[in-house]
């Protein structure tokens, strides 16, 4: 009997850890991308990018809500009151928005992984998560359509746009590999059919992004020369995360019960 309980505990831990990783990625990147609101390169793109940033916040809220139903604190408390090292987001989402080419490349690399991840999760044995994953499908499809169209546009644009998007790819690639940092729960997640695992996801992601990047005329960094930016999933973050969280939680800290 004792063994069974322990095993279920590990399973619950594994699911919660997965949910925190997914939700924190969405929250932090959603916040980052919203920094473009009002500053986007053109009005139409400003609106589209801001709208997608809102989608990300919505996704994080749905995942925090699921965590709440599993006994964690309520979504706002989870989002706004944790210490920096309690966030499990990857380094890619933490970086400042930089120039628009960087933000677009990050958006492309990250959202391609999200679309594949949630597609995988839509057949998860953990049904509440499978249900959420199905709900995200349409939004993520648009996000990747938007991203792919832009990458093609810039890759085939002028010499300047092609060289800038290439530089952004070179900068983003090691960070993007950090999305797939394995957790200590990989085996449990895989054997319990909750999630196919980060390794499987990374493979599918490479199969999906490489043709798009090649089609846009970009050079793919050699995997063996790239060091994946790991640490985020263990709570070890870049210097950029703390200032972001300080700013994001400013209002909450002044008045935690404020209605919007």
């Amino acid at each position: 009997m004792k063994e069974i309980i322990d095993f279920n505990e590990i399973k619950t831990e594994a699911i919660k850890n997965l949910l925190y990783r997914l939700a924190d990625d969405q929250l932090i990147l959603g916040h980052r991308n919203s920094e473009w609101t009002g500053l986007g390169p053109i009005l139409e793109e400003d609106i589209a990018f801001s709208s997608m940033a809102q989608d990300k916040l919505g996704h994080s809220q749905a995942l925090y809500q699921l965590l709440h139903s599993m006994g964690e604190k309520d979504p706002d408390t989870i989002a706004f009151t944790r210490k920096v090292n309690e966030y499990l987001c990857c380094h890619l989402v933490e970086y400042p928005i930089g120039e628009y080419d960087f933000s677009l490349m990050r958006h492309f690399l990250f959202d391609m992984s999200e679309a594949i991840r949630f597609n995988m999760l839509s057949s998860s044995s953990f049904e509440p998560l499978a249900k959420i994953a199905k709900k995200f499908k349409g939004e993520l499809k648009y996000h990747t359509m938007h991203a792919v169209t832009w990458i093609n546009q810039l890759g085939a644009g002028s010499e300047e746009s092609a060289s800038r998007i290439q530089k952004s790819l070179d900068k983003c690639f090691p960070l993007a590999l950090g999305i797939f940092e394995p957790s200590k729960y990989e085996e449990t997640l895989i054997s319990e059919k909750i999630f196919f695992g980060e390794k499987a996801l990374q493979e599918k992601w490479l199969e999906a992004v490489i043709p798009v990047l090649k089609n846009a005329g970009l050079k793919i960094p050699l995997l063996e020369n790239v060091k994946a930016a790991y640490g985020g999933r263990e709570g070890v973050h870049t210097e950029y995360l703390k200032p972001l969280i300080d700013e994001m939680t400013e209002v909450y800290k002044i008045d935690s019960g404020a209605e919007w």
Partner: protein
Amino acid sequence: MSIKSIDPRVTRENLPEEPDQNPIKELNHWQTYEVFHQTKKGDHHIHVGSLHAPNAEMALILGKEQYARRYQCVNIWVVKSSDIFTSDYDDEDIFETTPEKMYREAGGYKVMDKINKFKKERKGV
């Protein structure tokens, strides 16, 4: 002491008096596209507005968020504004009809009497 305002409405950017004579490069020409959305399969596409985009693919991607992010929508069209052939407002009078031709308007048909009679009867029920 004078304070130099950083408000662009007060302190204007020093722009050259002669505008730049170099023509805009081809790539920088963004066009206007008209956007039409359809709320239900089979319905008419309805014009909802316009936007700027470098080509049709980008217009579609941007048009989706611009005009279909809040309301029910199943399909959108984008059409280059310059591809629309339009009548001239100077010719607006071609749409005027003379009042003597009531027979050309639905209200002039004899059947209206029957419809009104039917409506009256329904009211009585």
